[in-house]
């Protein structure tokens, strides 16, 4: 039986689900709202975790940050799985095109050995740092509270895995598997990389999800991305004629530009809720960003030499300015 259902105008019985009516009023809800608000269990949790009986299965008290309602931490991008995946698939198309452009025209081979070696020295060990961020954001997703906050952390975690994999592909393209091996050796023992590796390993034992968010997404990324991808790759390497490298790291620049808006929104909202939150966030941001600036300096020196201190100083200043705008004074 075929029924022409299109011709019938039916009166809906309701606009949306009850919990969304309570939050946003009695009107049609967006897919972001439907897929994100109040979908995590909250009450009558059955058992205490055997891995830590002092916690509840979903527990707001495992961080120092206090929010009346964790669903205030809205993602300005309104990413839910669909919008997230489609956005990344589009970027992946561009990245793939960039990689094949560089590869098919042999642009990698045209790079001077000196520039290529700077690019590999600065970039390849960062795939390990990206894995650290993957782990840290996975942690925040796993133990953080409220889907609007935690789902974005899962997306961030997978993005960092993607970044680690793009860096690895860049290494394979410009220097084959040897580049990856050399990068890992540098990560493990070259003096320039040890402070950063120490920072990342210290993050792996932080178990306050919000502090970890600050240490990774605010402080470290907030300096690493501008310094490496804007100043070294887009600035220094491109001006020397190695813009092929910038083509291969375009994703990282676009990604940082996009994700920092989310990071800022999270911090701004949490800080605005109470003086307590603001003070805690300021302490964390101060502590971790001061250290991040220190650990980035020897890495920046691999490319920028004498100008490194000045460059790091400039980026620290703009980081502080960025933080000030969202209510964090350091």
């Amino acid at each position, binding site marked *: 039986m075929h029924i022409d259902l299109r*011709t019938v105008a039916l009166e809906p019985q309701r606009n949306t689900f009850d919990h969304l009516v309570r939050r946003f009023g009695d009107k049609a809800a967006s897919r972001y709202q*439907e897929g994100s608000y109040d979908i995590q269990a909250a009450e*009558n949790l059955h058992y205490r*975790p055997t891995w830590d009986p002092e916690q509840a299965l979903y527990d707001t008290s495992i961080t120092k940050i206090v929010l009346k309602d964790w669903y205030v931490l809205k993602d300005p991008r309104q990413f839910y799985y669909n919008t997230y*995946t489609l956005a990344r698939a589009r970027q992946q198309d561009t990245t793939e095109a960039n990689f094949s452009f560089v590869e098919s025209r042999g642009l990698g081979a045209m790079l001077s050995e000196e520039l290529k070696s700077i690019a590999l020295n600065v970039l390849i060990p960062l795939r390990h740092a990206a894995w650290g961020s993957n782990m840290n954001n*996975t942690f925040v997703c796993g133990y953080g509270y409220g889907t609007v906050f935690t*789902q974005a952390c899962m997306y961030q975690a997978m993005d960092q895995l993607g970044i680690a994999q793009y860096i690895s592909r860049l290494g394979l393209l410009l220097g084959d598997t040897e580049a990856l091996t050399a990068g890992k050796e540098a990560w493990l023992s070259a003096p320039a990389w040890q402070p950063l590796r120490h920072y990342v390993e210290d993050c792996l034992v932080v178990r306050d999800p919000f502090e970890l968010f600050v240490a990774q997404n605010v402080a470290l990324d907030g300096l690493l991305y501008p310094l490496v991808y804007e100043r070294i790759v887009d600035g220094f390497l491109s001006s020397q004629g190695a813009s092929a490298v910038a083509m291969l790291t375009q994703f990282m620049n676009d990604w940082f530009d996009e994700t920092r808006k989310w990071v800022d929104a999270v911090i701004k909202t949490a800080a605005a809720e109470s003086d307590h939150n603001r003070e805690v966030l300021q302490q964390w941001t101060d502590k971790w960003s001061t250290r991040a600036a220190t650990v980035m300096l020897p890495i920046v020196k691999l490319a920028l030499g004498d100008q490194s201190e000045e460059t790091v100083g400039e980026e620290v200043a703009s980081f502080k300015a960025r933080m000030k705008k969202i209510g964090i004074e350091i």
Partner: protein
Amino acid sequence: MDTQVTKKKLGLKERYKLLTRDLGWEPTHHTRDEIYPYVKYEGIKIHDWDKWEDPFRLTMDAYWKYQAEKERKFYAIIDAHAQNNGHLNLTDARYLTAIKIFLQAISPGEYAASKGFARMGREFGGVGTQVACQMQALDEIRHAQTQIHAISNYNKYYNGFHAFSDSRDRIWYTSVARSFFDDAMSAGPFEFMIAIGFSFEYVLTNLLFVPFMSGAAYNGDMATVTFGFSAQSDEARHMTLGLECIKFMLEQDPDNLPIVQRWIDKWFWRGMRVLSLVGAMMDYMLPKRVMSWKEAFDIYGVENGGALFNDLARYGITAPKGWDIAAGAIEHMSHQLFLGLYQWSFGTAFHGWIPSDDDMDWLSSKYPTTFDKYYRPRWEHIKKLEAEGTPFKNFGLAKLCQTCQLPTVFTEPGDPTLTCHREVDYKGEKYHFCSDGCKDIFENEPEKYIQSWLPMPALFSELGGDIGAWMDWVGLRNGIDNGDYVGSQDQVNFDKWRGMATSNK
């Protein structure tokens, strides 16, 4: 042209290895125990995380590409479904009872699985395992969201869906699925993998997503089929992960075998209890049926589960402890549970009904040795009460199982005429169970299960037995969301709308 030395051509496996597990390193500033504090206490011994076999080798670029394609297809179909009043293609709106249970009990479980896998994606000690769990965490967010989005349009036209977020934590039958996930999440990482990776993904989702979704297609529900099959395409990866994880544990150390076996026993039984909901959905809630619950179980439980356990026999694994009892109960479980759902329908955010004569004849043909003998007489009596104007409602709330949280509807093994009564005294308190399987699970970890939040007792301890207050609290609108399908607003509207679509009136 390219004057470089020709690059080594990397195969899928080597390339994947470089792009994932090579990202990790041996830490020097903190011990592995500090970084991975939860991987040891369960007693599972892992000597070499590198022996982990990656089942599928998706890098993020391929993941984004293929998942985006799945997403585009999915949302195109549910948009069209909504725009074209696709809900009027259903065979009958009573079918939506199954979808109401799905949204209230199963979709929140998908989300819980996502949180759980995010935790495992951080707690496991090897990059291969971490990445596999993280991808699953991401997929499970997808499943929860695509389900809510597919069902959202039904919520606009039909009752029983609107309060799913409240009923998830408060109404009685959702506690069955939620306790399953809470149980898994409160366990350590390896047990979680057996619970969700093995029991839920390998045993349960095939039964839930494959034959049931085929049934949804048969009943004109393209929205559900689409999310079901689309989700199951991810589950193929997840099932494989569950299987790899079991093999990995068993290969790492012979001491792991008894621990793994105990978890398999436990989670097989936990899974079977959750599946009784699926059995009732398949046998009673599909107006047009593709196959019976028993037939589905023969294919995906007995045949496929049997193949799995035969395969694992080389490690010393035996079929789960309750396997034979479960196989014997297949003839009964859907009937026993649906009879309960019908008589407690005043307390469910979905409708119940008396099976029609056609339904009962179909059930007789599918359950020739049990339905007519045990279950038809009860339904005939219920029909008689209905015809006499005294429809049967059981206002005695049900005794719940302390472990699985289902009403204790199941009968003694080998005697389908006698309810299975099991109880345990522990530290001066009495606890009740639906079966030996659930009692064993309790006795293995009593300090865990004494904490169970049992919704029926809670109605008295927390709300003083006030049914009206309870309905408000769980978001159930009396006379609208609950009770009989016959005469319900859902039935009246569906018939009216379908009439508008098929005639000129």
